[in-house]
């Protein structure tokens, strides 16, 4: 079965652990930074971890082309979805025909549409 597919699971685990910690730190610290920097860093960590899981824990490193070919269409299709939907739904340029931006909210109390999103009844929402 998976002969010769050995790797040091503990090392991978420690890697995942450290990257999670770094990522959370980046997320907390980064909210003052500019978005590309914040997002770039977060995505870097996220994909690094996803890669570790896929490649080692899910054995992708030891699988043949068959498995890859099964996965191959997905990134392509995901890009297709984004490519077509974004210019339409999320267009904020000249072609944007939305009256209220997405995320606006109808306020029952005032009977008006609030263009600014209100997080929840008591501002802050969480804990």
């Amino acid at each position, binding site marked *: 079965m998976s002969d010769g597919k050995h790797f040091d699971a503990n090392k991978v685990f420690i890697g995942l652990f450290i990257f999670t910690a770094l990522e959370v730190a980046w997320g907390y610290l980064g909210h003052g930074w500019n978005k590309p920097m914040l997002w770039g860093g977060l995505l870097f960590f996220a994909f690094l971890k996803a890669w570790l899981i896929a490649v080692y824990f899910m054995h992708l490193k030891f699988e043949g082309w*068959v498995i890859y070919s099964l996965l191959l*269409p997905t990134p392509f299709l995901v890009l297709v*979805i984004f490519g077509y939907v974004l*210019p*339409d*739904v999320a267009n904020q340029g000249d*072609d944007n025909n939305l009256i209220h*931006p997405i995320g606006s909210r109808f306020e029952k109390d005032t009977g008006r*549409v609030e263009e600014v999103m209100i997080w929840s009844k008591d501002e802050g929402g969480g804990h």
Partner: protein
Amino acid sequence: MSSSSLPTEPLGLAPSGTVHVSHDHHEIGFLKKYVFSTDHKMIGIQFLFTGLVTLLIGGLLAMGIRWQLAFPWTEMPVLGKLLFPETGGVATPEGYTMLFTMHGTVMVFFVIIPLLTGAFGNFLIPLQIGAPDMAFPRLNMLGYWWMWPGIILMFLAFGTEGGGPAAGWTAYPPLSTIESAAPGSLNGQTLWLLALTFSGVSSMMGAVNYVTTIVKMRAPGMTIMRMPLSIWGLLIAALLQLFALPVLTAASFMQIFDRVFDAGFFNAPDTLVNNMSPEVDLGTAAGGHPLLWQHLFWFYSHPAVYIMVLPAMGFVSDILATHARKPIFGYKPMVYSLAGIAGLGFIVWGHHMFMSGLNPKVSLVFMTATIMIALPSAVKVFNWLGTLWGARIQLTTPMLFAIGFVAMFIIGGLSGIWMASTPVDIYIHDTYIIVAHFHYVVFAGSVFAIFASIYHWFPKMFGRMMNDTLGKVHFFGTFVFTNGVFYMMHQLGLAGLMRRTADPYAYELYAHLQPLNQFISYCAFALLGWQVLFVFNLFHSMFFGKRVGRNPWRANSLEWSAPSPPGHGNFDHQLEVVRGAYEYGDPEAEEDHLPQAVRVS
């Protein structure tokens, strides 16, 4: 000429794959044999009969539609009492919307897809590739039974408060998400969404099974380029299901969230229905985007229309070659064009949204891709014609239906070019031209292919022939009435008649179209009536048809070297495939067919 001269002895050839030989034949009880069967053949037959019954239901709903369009607001015979008891059998406007919504949904999700992939996919895949069963027989059974909650929920929807779903088979929000927007948008719509999810999960189970079986269980020598085109069609349709359906499932859940939890994926924040005050009515407070649903829906449902036609194309190719006694013309281009249609099918969904408020620049991209789909389709059509050239055509019932498929798929496909053209679509979008187009491809196309396949594979399923003369009579009537119904819809559409209209004659512009609509409806009733011949033939032949040997059509593909009907494990001899599926009329050979697994010395 005896075609039963197939080897019953193992060929004694060293197989290239591993063979696992097991001897298990125990008697199985009735319930296990006919109801909770894990045998792909029985499951296929279960799908077949379920699909035919739902076809009848869908057909009856269509008759309701036709009655209303021919004689609006008059008492509908038979159906009226059942569907509209409160009004004494007269359709109501909201009742009409429910009629076509249910008709479309039932036909697409519970007739065509189960018949093509469920019935014939199950029956043919193991037999044509030389496998004893599906890779996962129990999953297969589960897939069949998983469809039932879907069917039941779908019909339960009719009985709930407000009645059945009434937002069209496309279920565009906000009509489908705001409860007070349509009476059928009460629980009916939620049940509809759940039903879709169940049928979707059922299809997924099937699709995983089909792909695994085709990839992993082919008999020795059955290289992929020797597979019959039916298998190719089914394989590619299964892949389409696998990659497109999850997105619809995700979207359905988003719609369920919108409906049940008042989430706001598909609603604009300033939506107001029926002048109701927002406190009472506004289903949701948060604002999303109505077009998002359309994108996600068509991301699945456009590939779905090819799921509804690619297997049909495969079956037709097999039937044409067999009854033309000639190899299929251009096997490889046929395979590539199936794949091409499927690949392009993923990037054209926007052609359903040209008028929807879609960014018009994006429309141009969608248009170009859509028009290009005609290319692989053209390759298919020309190769079918090429197959007939120089052939020895046997005008059997399956052959007639298969030729009928080609004749009418051309019509349906060609009208697709108008719609693909964005400027022309401005006028014809949502008119009866669209209705004509898709009925030509789904009814005159897929359903004709299903008829052809039933006549063709019936002997393998039941070991008996269907009556050929009766079948031909069935074909001639069906062909005439089908064209009577759907061809004239082009004319309605050119005159600008809108689809989904309960009473078109309220408009001056359409008033003169009533006679034409009545003609169409008469043809539709005749079409339904004519199917009595088929139903009779089907059931009669199951018990009293002429018994046949293994290979009544003298065909090449592997299923014909198994007994009719095949027993447990399908094949009673070891297989070694030595050639493609279409070696008909080889001048070197003794007979005019060379079965795939018979070696000629």
